[in-house]
């Protein structure tokens, strides 16, 4: 088969370029985002950059693969081998702590205490969907501003859709600044929302019944304490969003060769283009390239036919099994190439790196280094 015109994602050029300041790894769940982020971070560090990797993955898999006992909200040094030209730190996002720090930074101590103790704030900072993404962006902004890092690699939170990383912070910002929260926190008697017209009375009574008076009280004191402190959540979210559009940012979309993951990757690539966000390329993990040599020329049908011809005489079970195995492998590869080429044909010019499936999962720095090497030398032609 002829692969679609395809350019290689050059991982070394990406991490070596001093202009690259942020790499964001996105994709569906279970495609190896965390591993890819850590491997890129390690490669950058060993090639001379001061690198920090942020992970938001609650499974703490990155922690394990980096040999760290635990990751907290502060970047922790990762011991590299001698001769590493740069340095590597890793951190795990603690969304509540990040939120608390934002509050403490902006409010006087009294007011900060008041906010932190508010039950509505506690729910917001621990369990609203979108808070994780919002705080990941917040942390990214902080690290970028600190000037301590040449390169920040971000592993995006696990969520229903890869797009949530882009959309959730703004959605949450819209809610926090929006009509609903003003409406709910307005004193019950003001009537400021008459303009809502028909259904308004039903709405007020229903919301009261549904959420209860206590929550509305908590919400009111939260909003009054909060209002004086922040310049607006939406604006804050948009500021970090803009950071993602600057030339120093590169998105790496991660996928595996299955239909769902490739579809998700394709949505994400479209979205980046729509929002004029810089896509560095697509990493396809866990592929099964064929080894070079005479076997590469042996097609699946031919191999099965040969195995069948042997099967009739039953004299060469090993060769027959090897041929069937090879046929399976060729078909797997064909399926992978089809999926990849379908994406490439609808998204011209996307650069790709493939990382071949490993017999075992990556558990340590050596494993991550191997992935980094594969990313740097990857080609997906076979």
């Amino acid at each position, binding site marked *: 088969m002829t692969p679609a015109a395809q350019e290689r994602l050059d991982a070394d050029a990406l991490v070596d370029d001093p202009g690259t300041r942020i790499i964001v790894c996105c994709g569906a769940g279970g495609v190896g985002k965390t591993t890819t982020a850590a491997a890129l971070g390690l490669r950058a560090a060993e090639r001379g950059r001061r690198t920090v990797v942020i992970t938001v993955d609650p499974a703490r898999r990155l922690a394990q693969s980096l040999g760290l006992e635990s990751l907290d909200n502060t970047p922790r040094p990762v011991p590299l081998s001698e001769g590493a030209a740069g340095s590597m730190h890793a951190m795990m996002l603690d969304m509540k702590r990040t939120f608390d720090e934002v509050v403490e930074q902006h409010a006087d101590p009294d007011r900060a205490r008041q906010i932190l103790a508010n039950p509505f704030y506690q729910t917001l900072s621990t369990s609203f969907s979108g808070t994780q993404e919002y705080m990941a962006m917040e942390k990214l902004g902080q690290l970028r501003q600190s000037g301590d890092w040449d390169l920040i690699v971000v592993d995006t939170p696990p969520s229903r859709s890869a797009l949530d990383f882009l959309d959730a912070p703004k959605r949450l910002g819209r809610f926090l600044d929006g009509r609903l929260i003003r409406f709910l926190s307005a004193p019950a008697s003001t009537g400021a929302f008459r303009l809502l017209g028909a259904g308004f009375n039903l709405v007020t009574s229903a919301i009261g019944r549904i959420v209860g008076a206590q929550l509305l009280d908590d919400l009111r004191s939260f909003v009054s304490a909060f209002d004086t402190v922040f310049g607006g959540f939406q604006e804050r979210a948009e500021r970090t969003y803009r950071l993602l559009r600057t030339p120093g940012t590169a998105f790496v979309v991660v996928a595996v060769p299955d239909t769902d*993951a490739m579809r998700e990757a394709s949505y994400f690539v479209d979205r980046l283009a729509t929002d004029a966000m810089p896509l560095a390329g697509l990493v396809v993990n866990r592929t099964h390239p064929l080894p070079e040599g005479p076997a590469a020329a042996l097609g699946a049908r031919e191999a099965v036919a040969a195995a069948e011809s042997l099967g009739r005489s039953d004299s060469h079970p*090993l060769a027959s099994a090897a041929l069937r195995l090879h046929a399976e492998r060729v078909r797997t590869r064909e399926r992978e190439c089809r999926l990849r080429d379908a994406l490439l044909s609808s998204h011209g010019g996307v650069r790709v790196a493939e990382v071949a499936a490993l017999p075992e999962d990556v558990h340590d720095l050596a494993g991550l280094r191997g992935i980094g090497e594969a990313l740097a030398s990857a080609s997906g032609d076979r």
Partner: protein
Amino acid sequence: MSEGEDGPQPPGGARAKARLHIVTGKGGTGKTTVAAALAQALASGGGRVLLVEVEGRQGVATLLGGPPLPYEEREMVSVPGGGTVCVLAADAEAALLEYLEMFYGMRRAGQALNRLGAVDFATTIAPGLRDVLLTGKATEAVRRRRGSRRRASDASPKAPFHYDAVVMDAPPTGRIARFLNVNSEVAGLARVGPVRNHADRVMEVIRSEQTRVHFVSLLEEMPAQETRDGIAEILGLGLRVGMVLVNMVRPPLLDEADLAAAAEGDTDPDALSAGLEEARLEAPGELAAALAGEVRAHALRVRLERRVRSGLEELGRPLLELPLLEGGVDRAALDVLARRLAEQGVRR
């Protein structure tokens, strides 16, 4: 259908009292496929089964090769023997509006809430509300009885259930415990009141003997690890774990002696080469060397797969297998998978 005790013991409560089957697993393990096959297996022999999709991916429509499904319970598959599988692509927003209308008669208020941003809030931001709306749809279908229009409580309690079983294509293992633990999730927003009551009703079904959480795994380390972690979490919530379904299992191609030799890199190149020569392939010597490498990689993978499998066996749950199907999954493939489940004892 005979209810005799002569057949194999149904695994994981797939018979008995289980009527809500929640299917989870690591992303990429084929949850949707397995859930659809399970629904079909449960419908075989004349059952009426609802397959509920909650992730908004339209995965079932893709699987069945059709256009996206609307928000309604739609008959999609007829199973030999008179059974049917209905499919519902549950949608949190539609469920919310339906819920408001049903319980509060608030169709117009729904529009006002929408303008206010309250619908968006409830379905995408508020902790747990989305989950309780989606699980609520599934548990309502579990409780519904024939002769009732919608609400489970309309019909006589003696009427037979509308669905013999409900299968949920659930979120992946990383999010399943949170998703199912609805009342602790909504507690942050609603400690009292109708949302809380609704969550309690949903939780009652999820905690009951009628519900089983099944895990889909592959013979790979990470999915198996997530299965282990997920089972511990689900048991920690006091819920019932059903089967472990090992998906995409490849048939063994080599015998034990060849596997052992290959894993050590001791595949006999002459035997291989002689076979290839007999099959009239070109350059049999070189080809044999190349194929020996592939055979070794295969043998190492088989070894790893066996280790993973014995780890899964230690979980002490019924372990069912589904084969890897060449050429992907379509309706015909689903039939095959459903039959395989039935052969391994899955039935109502």
